[in-house]
């Protein structure tokens, strides 16, 4: 056995987390679940709209957003950070549109320009003012879900709810799920056919910016736990896995939640086994689920896809 890989001990990996360390395991898994669910639900729409890269962009550009928010407010409070990240998200979205529309640069290149520039500004700001702000670059980039049990507990009306970041993430997840449920029609039709949405009196531009705002809120809530980089995986993996397993959007949303739950639990055990970053372990577990889904159901899907491609070709030949 290689010394680099810790020995797999069933007791330590699967039993102890739920006996000896029960309370910390629960909060960590719940946090992972909420992060992956909120990200996954929004991510489904990003995938459908072929905007996965925008999630990438916004998760990077919140770095300058929170840096500026720190500098202005001087606090690490969640409200200034929220606002900073939200503004950064909005700036990124608008910047991408402006670069794309006002120049002949294609959208993917515009995204590349917008977020790398903003990210670089964020890095400069943090390194310039590192002495003044209590901001850990490692934490911003990779997050630390393992510290959650060290937080105090939020109490409300005599009830102990849980660590503040978990409570916050639960609220965000609830709001996202509610919005996705309430505006299901509008989100669906504007993702599928924006022109039709317009003719139905649904403002696709508004839906686009609302989705971007939701994405910014989700990303900034999630980044404390999993960091600005791993959150991208959380955005894409659940939806991508669901895409392999179902052709029905409501089913895909359900599978997204299932994927989130499984990633969180399996990630915890993987992290305990390897004694590594729990956020990274959760992402790797999610990737494992994706690969498993691709291995089992991928062929069928590719086959169906080729079938439709052929049909399209057949259709176009008649032009």
């Amino acid at each position, binding site marked *: 056995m290689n010394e680099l890989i810790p020995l797999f001990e069933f007791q330590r990996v699967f039993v102890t987390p739920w006996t000896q360390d029960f309370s910390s395991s629960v909060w960590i898994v719940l946090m992972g679940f909420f992060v992956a669910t909120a990200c996954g639900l929004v991510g489904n729409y990003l995938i459908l709209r072929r905007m996965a890269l925008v999630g990438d962009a916004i998760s990077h550009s919140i770095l300058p957003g929170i840096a500026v928010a720190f500098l202005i407010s001087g606090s690490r409070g969640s409200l200034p950070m929220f606002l900073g990240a939200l503004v950064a998200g909005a700036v990124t979205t608008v910047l991408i549109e402006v670069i794309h529309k006002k120049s002949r640069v294609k959208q993917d290149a515009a995204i590349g320009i917008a977020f790398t520039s903003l990210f670089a500004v964020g890095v400069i700001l943090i390194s310039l003012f590192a002495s003044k702000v209590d901001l850990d670059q490692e934490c911003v980039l990779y997050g630390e879900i393992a510290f959650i049990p060290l937080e105090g507990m939020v109490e409300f009306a005599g009830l102990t709810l849980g660590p503040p970041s978990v409570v916050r993430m639960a609220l965000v997840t609830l709001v996202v799920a509610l919005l996705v449920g309430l505006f299901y029609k509008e989100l669906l*039709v504007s993702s*599928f056919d924006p022109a039709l949405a*317009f*003719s*139905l009196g649904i403002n696709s531009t508004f839906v686009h910016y609302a989705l971007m705002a939701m994405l910014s809120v989700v990303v900034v809530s999630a980044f404390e736990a999993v960091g600005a980089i791993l959150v991208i995986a959380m955005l894409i993996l659940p939806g991508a896995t669901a895409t392999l397993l179902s052709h029905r959007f409501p089913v895909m949303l359900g599978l997204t939640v299932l994927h989130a739950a499984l990633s969180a639990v399996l990630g915890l055990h993987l992290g305990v086994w390897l004694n590594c970053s729990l956020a990274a372990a959760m992402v790797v577990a999610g990737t494992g689920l994706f690969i498993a889904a691709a291995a089992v159901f991928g062929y069928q899907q590719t086959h*169906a896809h080729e079938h439709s491609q052929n*049909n*399209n070709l057949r259709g176009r030949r008649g032009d």
Partner: protein
Amino acid sequence: MSPPPLEIHDLTVAYHKKPVLWGVDLVVPPGKLVGIVGPNGAGKSTLIKAAMGLLPVSSGWVKVFGEPVAKNLRRVGYVPQRESVDWDFPVSVMDVVLMGRYGKLGLLKRPTKADHDKARECLDKVKMLPYANRQISNLSGGQQQRVFLARALAQESDLYFMDEPFSGVDAATESAIIALLHELRAAGKTLLVVHHDLPTARNYFDMLLLLNMRVVAFGPTEEVFNYETLQKTYGGRLTILSEVAEAVRVKG
């Protein structure tokens, strides 16, 4: 007299400062099946998109049933080009047709049983009811087009804009579409259809709009469909001109 279904005055549309449509004036009478023909890049799709308010216009205005189009969108139905959407999208045929009902539902409402019944009725009209539960990627081009038409029917509009509904469909679908257009016309609807095939244009439509950046001619098909106007529309495009000559010859 009730206002015309569509009235366009001095409409100019530009992409990146290059005009695509120039000073379009048009009054479409009710209950007509109007074909919009012209060479590639003539601005056919642009015209219907601008008429619906989908594209910003540089000048001019559009009225639908006497009101600015934005106020009367409920009365407008739209069939986009088939290629404009992702057919791998995770929805069923039924889901797509139900989208046509969304405009009537308003915020926070889910499609009711009546909406489902209406959607089924529309699918039946285009003979796609047996495919209602199919994922849309498992459809042929003609079937996809019929789904789009069923969706337009479900919108229950009075004025329809259709962008190349005949593009890349099989013969059965083509005749099904024509039958449907005639049925809509009989119900008093007004239809504007972008079409690119000249020989069939003459048979399909009551009126033709010959377009090449400007309106070259607009009127009843038998008046407008002649060598002179077609040559004006298609200019020096030789291959198409011979096609035009052929079309005129067949007509004579």
